[in-house]
């Protein structure tokens, strides 16, 4: 009587057969990854094939002309970005895949651009960086922060890849901070560093919620209100001062007002009837630099409603009134 072969035994045999088959027919499951410099020349050998082996090369599935070959090796001159791709060489007669190369054309990194700023004084500051020109291949960055001789932790930003955050341990320090960054990729390496005092990098975010409203019965006034930026942690102990600029849309010249406190201001010299654009910036009272300008607010001062006039000679038509030009009688400066 035949003993039935256990099911598990069959499964193992099948798996082993599959592995052997795969190895024989796809000698390189994962292609060899290669990085080469833009503009350079590269020679890709067809794996371990002899120089005089008969092979065909393909890139991303498209055949390559045989004049690029030097024996069984593929020669690419003056690499361009378009040369990046998956190169495969096949035995010419059997179409047996012999070798695969994933070619990435790129550049070594140039000196990174690094800047730091404190928009949350006195809580801390952040540093952000970027490369002035792309490398087209993956880069890794490494940031170190020194306060005197003490190493400080720069916590990665949860959302932005090229930013990290440092918390101030002490205020009013005479010792400078030094932030260094190094960048490297498969083709090269670069680095830079900046040194600064605690106070010099303070720059708040712009004021928020800037609103401008006309003032009833006042044709030359506009009331502007805003809020301190929500990122500024302690406006009580570290008050901000503000800079307001405004102009009618039709003119290029701005008027400026500096305000040492308060988050409201009334413009009293607006041109009657003209639409205005208004922006506000913020700065710590004593240290650092001005923020960027806020989102602009628009407003037109109050104007008197034109009065409807009719004459006896013309009876009013239904739904239509004859109106005199509706400019109210006050002096226009323009």
């Amino acid at each position: 009587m035949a003993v039935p072969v256990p099911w598990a035994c069959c499964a193992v045999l099948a798996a082993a057969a599959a592995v052997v088959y795969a190895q024989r027919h796809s000698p390189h499951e994962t292609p060899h990854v290669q990085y080469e410099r833009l503009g350079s020349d590269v020679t890709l050998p067809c794996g371990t094939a002899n120089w005089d082996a008969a092979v065909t090369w393909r890139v991303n599935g498209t055949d390559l002309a045989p004049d690029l070959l030097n024996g069984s090796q593929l020669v690419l001159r003056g690499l361009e970005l378009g040369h990046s791709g998956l190169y495969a060489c096949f035995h010419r007669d059997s179409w047996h895949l012999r070798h695969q190369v994933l070619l990435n054309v790129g550049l070594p990194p140039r000196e990174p651009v690094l800047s730091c700023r404190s928009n949350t004084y006195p809580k801390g500051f952040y540093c952000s960086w970027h490369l002035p020109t792309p490398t087209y291949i993956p880069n890794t960055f490494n940031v170190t922060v020194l306060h005197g001789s003490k190493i400080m932790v720069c916590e990665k930003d949860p959302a932005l890849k090229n930013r990290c955050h440092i918390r101030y341990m002490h205020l009013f320090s005479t010792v400078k901070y030094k932030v260094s960054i190094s960048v490297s990729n498969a083709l090269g390496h670069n680095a830079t560093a900046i040194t600064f005092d605690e106070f010099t990098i303070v720059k708040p975010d712009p004021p928020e919620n800037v609103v401008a409203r006309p003032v009833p019965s006042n044709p030359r006034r506009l009331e502007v209100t805003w809020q301190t930026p929500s990122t500024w942690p302690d406006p009580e102990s570290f008050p901000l001062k503000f800079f307001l600029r405004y102009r009618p849309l039709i003119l290029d010249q701005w008027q400026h007002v500096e305000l040492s406190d308060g988050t409201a201001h009334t413009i009293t010299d607006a041109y009657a009837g003209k639409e205005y654009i208004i922006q506000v910036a913020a700065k710590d009272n004593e240290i650092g630099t001005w923020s960027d300008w806020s989102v602009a607010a628009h407003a037109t001062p109050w104007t008197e409603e034109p009065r409807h006039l009719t004459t006896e000679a013309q009876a009013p038509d239904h739904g239509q009134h004859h109106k005199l030009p509706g400019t109210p009688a006050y002096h226009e400066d323009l």
Partner: protein
Amino acid sequence: MLPAAGEPAAGDSWGMLACLCTVLWHLPAVPALNRTGDPGPGPSIQKTYDLTRYLEHQLRSLAGTYLNYLGPPFNEPDFNPPRLGAETLPRATVDLEVWRSLNDRLRLTQNYEAYSHLLCYLRGLNRQAATAELRRSLAHFCTSLQGLLGSIAGVMAALGYPLPQPLPGTEPTWTPGPAHSDFLQKMDDFWLLKELQTWLWRSAKDFNRLKKKMQPPAAAVTLHLEAHGF
């Protein structure tokens, strides 16, 4: 005016500081302001704040000139030496929570003591300065700094706080070590100016805080937009 202590012998200048600084501690007591009907310490706090801003501005040009006189590397913008020596300089640096929770008296006392020390050291610097122009600038700054001290003393008196008296043995003396080279002396000068600048920034924040605490609660800004036809 402070009594002249006589021209110091070379290398002996720091010893003279003890005598001069003792005199400094005994500023004439500022009579307490008559509290009935007066505006309170507010205006003098404002004045003190304004003085710190003025001094900070003045220091910028003075420090630039002095660091150029010291020469490189002291006048290089990236100069970032380790904080060694100059241990007796009053340090402005402080933990944030500690600074926030200082009571008014302590806040004022720390400022007063710091500037008293710094003024002493500055006077020592003045004696060493090589050019007449530098000595003039330093002397002018010292006078202004003296004014700031008087202003702080005025605020303390108005609030009823006693001026800090030096404990015996804690008078600022800055005696150089046995091998105090020219370079190390310049380092000390560098840190003195740095600390002075930082203290002026800190004081602006200190007096800002005092000003806010002394003000009556600010009336809420309410915008009355009457709805005429709106």
